[in-house]
């Protein structure tokens, strides 16, 4: 940033971080920058400044223990001081199944605080209609069962919610949705708790919805004889069928089994199965472009149903990644636990998409006008659903 930018940022007196009422005192604020992620100690400092900024006789103030005209014991006054403000220690700690989390903060550190944030679109003249955070779930027990988040994962998602709360304004409405798996739902729920804790801490009022599942944001699907599943949901059947073929050592495996085996073998070998899914055409897996289309459909529905709300979506890495790939035109990589892609819907059917230090403006695809790949095709070239329609 150039020197002049900084000076400008200081000159226009920019919005205070955190508590906006913190600077009612006569003392002018020091030169400062606008931050999306102010540390808590800055808030402590601003609170102190709001009370005159005096900490001791030295700077012209009165130390808590020097009010000698008063017989109230020091510890009682200290206790009252503490009670009068919302002390961070008084907000509830995140819990997992009713138990305190014995994990370190560092590993649960939110993964994206120091990255480039798109310029406030309002400054740039555009109006943000809706902002959508598409967030990967926290750490899970594994992908072979629907076992939900680990304690660390719960802590991570709580932190993410807490982090998002810093950017909420008074009166903002937040709508929280999730994919229909345990890990995604628990992620959205944890984010919701973190949000509420953060709002309490910053003393802000925002309307936060309960968590609702949204089909459009489900994980990419794989076909199994029992129906469409996400890869985790299909794991048990896959294992069972594979064992059967291994025991009898004969017969050709059906193609869904071959493909899901490739997927899980990649995972077992330490590779990245999501890369496989994005790059290898698989007839029994939902095509990545269909997933992207589905996400845009979900975003369109949100725009209509909750205009102006902040939307938080707890979902899975695969869809998030192909959504970003589709916007950027290259593969920015697998999102970490609780890493997010931010979609800012602007007027005129355009959107800003931010992920991993890159911001891309895209046109929101008009889904009705996208090509129909089966136009004028007949017979076996058609996917099964239109084929059945034709028969009927």
């Amino acid at each position, binding site marked *: *940033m*150039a*020197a002049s930018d*900084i*000076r400008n940022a200081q000159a226009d007196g920019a919005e205070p971080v955190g508590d906006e009422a913190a600077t009612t005192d006569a003392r002018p*604020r*020091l*030169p*400062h*920058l606008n*931050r999306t992620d*102010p*540390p*808590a*100690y*800055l808030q*402590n*400092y*601003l609170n*102190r400044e709001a009370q005159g*900024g005096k*900490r*001791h006789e*030295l*700077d012209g103030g009165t*130390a*808590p*223990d020097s009010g000698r005209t008063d017989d109230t014991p020091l510890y009682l006054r200290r206790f009252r001081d503490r009670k009068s403000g919302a002390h961070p220690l008084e907000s509830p700690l995140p819990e997992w199944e009713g138990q305190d989390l014995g994990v370190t*903060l*560092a590993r649960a550190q939110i993964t994206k605080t120091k990255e480039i944030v798109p310029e406030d679109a309002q400054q740039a003249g555009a109006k943000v209609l809706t902002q959508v955070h598409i967030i990967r779930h926290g750490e899970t027990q594994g992908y072979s069962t629907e076992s939900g988040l680990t304690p660390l994962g719960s802590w991570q998602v709580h932190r993410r919610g807490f982090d998002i709360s810093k950017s909420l304004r008074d009166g903002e409405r937040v709508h929280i949705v999730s994919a229909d798996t345990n890990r995604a739902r628990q992620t959205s729920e944890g984010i919701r708790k973190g949000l509420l804790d953060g709002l309490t801490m910053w003393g802000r009022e925002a309307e936060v919805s309960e968590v609702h599942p949204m089909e459009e944001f489900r994980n990419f699907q794989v076909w199994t004889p029992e129906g469409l599943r996400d890869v985790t949901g299909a794991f048990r059947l896959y294992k069972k069928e594979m064992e059967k073929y291994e025991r009898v050592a004969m017969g050709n495996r059906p193609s869904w089994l071959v493909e899901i085996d490739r997927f899980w073998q990649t995972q077992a070998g330490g590779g990245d199965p999501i890369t496989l899914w994005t790059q290898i055409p698989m007839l029994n897996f939902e095509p990545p472009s269909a997933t992207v289309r589905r996400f845009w459909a979900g975003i369109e529905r949100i725009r209509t149903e909750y205009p102006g709300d902040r939307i938080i979506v707890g979902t899975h890495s695969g869809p998030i990644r192909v959504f970003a790939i589709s916007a950027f035109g290259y593969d920015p990589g697998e999102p970490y636990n609780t890493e997010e892609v931010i979609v800012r819907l602007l007027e005129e059917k355009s959107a800003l998409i931010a992920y991993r230090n890159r911001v891309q403006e895209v046109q929101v695809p008009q889904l009705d006008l996208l090509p129909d790949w089966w136009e004028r095709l007949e017979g076996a070239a058609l996917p099964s659903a239109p084929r059945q329609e034709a028969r009927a």
Partner: protein
Amino acid sequence: MGILRLSHVEVRVPDLELATAYYTEVVGLYETAREQDRVFLKCWDEQQHHSVILTSEPTYGLNHMGWKVRYREDLDYYTDRLAKAGVDVIRYAAGEIGPGHGEAIRFTLPSGHVMELVYGMQIVGNLLPLVNPPPKPINMVGFAPPRLDHIFITCEDVAGNTVFLQEVLDFHLTEQVVGDDGFQVATWLERSHHSHDIALVTGKDRGLHHFAFWVDDWTAIRDTADVLAYHGVPIETNPTRHGATRGHCIYFFDPAGNRNEAFTGGYQVDPEEPPITWTEAEMGRAIFYYDGVVDQHFLTVHS
């Protein structure tokens, strides 16, 4: 007579408010004066008006370092010495540099660092009474170091600057890292009869490697780490020990990117004692004794 110790540092910060919040809430310094673009701070046990000056500038790093001299005549004495060495000296009246500041001379080291000698900074007292004081104030926040300790700068010509400090300003060399090619990689020098007041390491001219706050013991280093971790301050090096100076230390960064240290330990030294030498092969141990390997991040990141 002569230079007593490191008096103060002036560092640049792009976000003065955030830096002030950090140095008062996390480090626990006390604000003694403020101007439009500068904030003056002191540690709790220091008697003089300030030891850290934060200056709002669009970058980070060291603006100048100030050294306290015992007598006003020391300013004249070193003005002469510096003039003989061909160094230009600017003299400032008391209060000219800033609120509470004493009479001072400023000059530039061969490495380009601006150095100041100051006499008679305003004495504001520490936070304790002079009669029957308690051992420390009770209402402090942050890790609350009692005083500023030393400064570590980077320069291209360590040997040249070391000689300058020794011959013109009467510093005493306590330790050095000597490379296999015979050149000094890093040096430690003192005026206060402790292991070091200033150190130099090979790097960019005018660079600040870190400045250090004194804390009272090894346990206080732990408490410092607790405070830093609590506030989410990036800790670069966990509590450990130096080979050179034998000190205990922890390194971390202020929000602008200036490296800070909390330091304790070290040893007493007399001016005639010969320096300790570390070889290039053992340089890792000279820096972090337990790790024993050269930490590239530590050696290359500076402000």
